[in-house]
Structures are given as C-alpha cells and as structure tokens.
C-alpha cells in the first residue's frame, strides 16, 4: 500500500460541550485533550484559522508544524492519543511478561 503523504490544509478550531474540534472543509474531527494538548491552550485558538496536518484520515497536528527539540517534549500541538483499550492490552502484555507490576 502506498504511504499516504502529509497534507497541510487550513482549518478552524471550534468548541462545543467542553470538547474541541477542528473543521477542515466539511470534515470535523475532535481534538483529544490530554497531558500534552491542554484544553486551556486550545481555548485560546477557538475561532482562529490554523494549519492542520493530515495523513490519510488522521489529523496529526494542528497549528504550526511542531519544532521539536532534542530531549524536550515536543510542541503541545502534536496530536496523539492512545485509545485506552490499546493501552490496557499493552499493559496486560507487559505484565504477563513480568515487566510491569500486575494490575497496572
């Protein structure tokens, strides 16, 4: 399968019911908030137009393409969210391997 290329488009950040979304054309995607994407920072972007980097069907970053620094966590606009079910699966896998404490 050919590798999808990242595409940067213009999008708008919107807020609804304490959740944040980015609208690109007619498509609306939720921006997951979490440790590295803070709701407070997103609130400041509501209503503004931002560059949105898309790979296939995934939004991988909003705002400027992150300038990443050696050994310092990347710009908070780097969007990444691990689904809890996948995380639990990996926790179980590495607990069974004796690496993580059981029940993690």
């Amino acid at each position: 399968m050919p590798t999808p290329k990242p595409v940067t488009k213009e999008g708008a950040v919107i807020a609804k019911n304490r959740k944040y979304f980015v609208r690109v054309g007619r498509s609306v995607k939720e921006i997951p908030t979490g440790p590295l994407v803070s709701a407070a920072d997103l609130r400041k972007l509501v209503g503004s137009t931002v560059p949105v980097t898309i790979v296939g069907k995934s939004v991988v970053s909003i705002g400027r393409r992150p300038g990443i620094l050696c050994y310092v966590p990347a710009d908070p606009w780097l969007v990444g969210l691990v689904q809890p079910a996948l995380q639990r699966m990996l926790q179980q896998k590495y607990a069974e391997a004796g690496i993580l404490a059981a029940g993690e």
Partner: protein
Amino acid sequence: MGRPDEPVLPFAQVVVEVTQACHHHCLHCYNFWRADRAPLTAPGTLSRAEIRAVVGRIRRDTPLRQVALSGGEPLLRPDLPEIAGDLAADGLGVVVITNGTLLTDERLGRFPAGTIFEFTLFSADPGLHDRIAGRPGAFRRTIRGIERAGRRHFRLALACVVTRLNAHDVWRTIELGIALRAEEVLFNRINLSRATLASAGELVPSVGQLRQALEAAEEAARRYGVAVAVAVPIPPCVLPLDRYPHLHFGWCPRGGPEAYYTVGYDGRLRPCNHSSVILGDLRTERFADIVTREATRAFWRPVSPICRACTDPLRDVCRGGCPAASDECLGSPGLVDPFVETCRRSEEARRRQTADCAGR
C-alpha cells in the same frame, strides 16, 4: 517581560542542568563533562533560590513558558521537587528529564501537579537497557519509578536514544512506553560528542538499522495513535524522511525562536544541552545581553558548503544536522553533523560483512 523600550526575545523554553552528577554511565552519553563530573555539592552549584532567580531573570527578557530540569540526573538533588514547585508557582511548565530510577512515592508527592517526566528507556529487554545505562538493575528501577509517576497521573514522555545496540527493539520499547502511560515518544538517534566519537562505530546505527527503527516507530504511531517526535535531526541525505508521515521530524532551531539555551549547574549559559561552549554567566550578566552578542550569533551562523549546495526540500531546516555535534566532534558548527558520515560508514561496513558472509 523586557523593558518597554527593548524588544522581548522570543524564547519560550530553557534547559537548566541542576547537577552534573549521575549514577548511570550511559554508553551514548553526550555530556561533555562525563569523564570529569562536578559532584552534587560542587562549589558554585546554583542553590534552589538561585535557580529561581536565574530563571526569573531569563523571564524578564523572554515570554518563557517551560523549563526543562535536567542533569546529570536531576533527581539526585534532594530539593528538585521544591525547585519544580518554585517554577510552577511562577507560572512555568516544568519538565524533568530523568532516568526515572529515583522516583519514589515520597519524592513524587512533593512535585507540583502538571510536572512532565521525560524518562529514558532504551529497550524492553532488561539486560540490554542495563547494559546501555551502564548500571545493573536500572531497568527494573526505571519501570517501578515510572509506574509510580503514572499512578499519580503525572504527564509522561518516553525518550528512547536509538543506537546500533537497540535499534532493533524500538517497536517493543514504544509499546512498553505506552503501557507505562507515556503520551509521547521521543525517538532520539544517538548524537555524537567528543566522548563518544571514538566508539561511534559501535554506537551509530547503519542506515539500514536506522530505517528499520524509523519504520517501527512509524508503525507504532499509526497503530497505537501515540505521538512520536524524531527529536534529534536526521539529515535527509542519510535517508528519505517522507516515508514516515506519522513521525514528526525536528530540526535544530539554531538560535531561532525555538532555541533552548541551557543553563549549567553553576549558572553559565550554553547554546544548548549538547554544547560545551560557554556563552556567558547568568549570575552576573543579563540573558538578553548574552544571547544577542556577536559571539553567540556567530555560533549559529555557519553552514557547511556541502549543505548550502544541497537540493533537498528540507535543506533550509536541516542545514547540516546538529551544529553542536559538529562543533564538539569536528571543531566547527559549520561542518556536516558527524552522524551523517558515521551512519554511512556503518552501512558500508554492514554491507561488507553481509557480502563476506555470503561469499563464505
């Protein structure tokens, strides 16, 4: 903020190395002091109050948002949670760059909420991690420390330094990082220094190994949704980067708005954590005066003629990779990052070895 009559410098982050001391002996360690570390109680070490004051002074000249507390191993300082607390109370984000082994419940309980712990994990194989960290038992202690931090809902980022020794295990390392609740992965290819140059052949992955490691990181980002930043620059002349659309490639800010000037344990300022060049002393000089002087600007300016002639679309962000590595290893920031050549040589050696094996 700066005085009204003066421009405010753009820098939003700074690294503070609170100590040079470290109880690990990582094979890839780039710290220029690794052979001659100042001890934890070395004369001239900034006190908790002095760190707050120095950061406050930087803040007067910049819109500073984030401070990375690094070392050495910063958690060797008993007052690290309070240092982090001071900075958080001043409205700054705090990142602690640590091997994680000293994260006890007692210490974690004293850190301000919102602290990000960036922990180093080199492999999901305990023996390999310990070998790279240079300390038996390091893996188990790192895992337990990070588990404790995760249970307390601290923000976590995994930093994996990728070398020839662990390039094959990137997939499992990222998986383990996700299981430990890391929300972001930093894929840091080894960055050479004067101390590691002699063993570059054993440490720098070949182009093929690097490609495999990036493919593993790309697949982990795609499958698990974790954000992966390739933080230490990989010049596109080593391998094409457009095959990894889920990875975010970083470049040296070269003194631009995203620069992260680094404060040493004694208050002296350097261009970044990798460089040994002393730009000035923040105990006696103003941050703005140091970073705007010609000697500082001159550090960032040179670009290798080879790189100036490069035709890759990434030329203007790459500009030769890590200038600090070039300066440390080759004597000038205006030469091509030594990683480029060693990575290629490593690939040639691997090919010769493969051909020899096939010929037998």
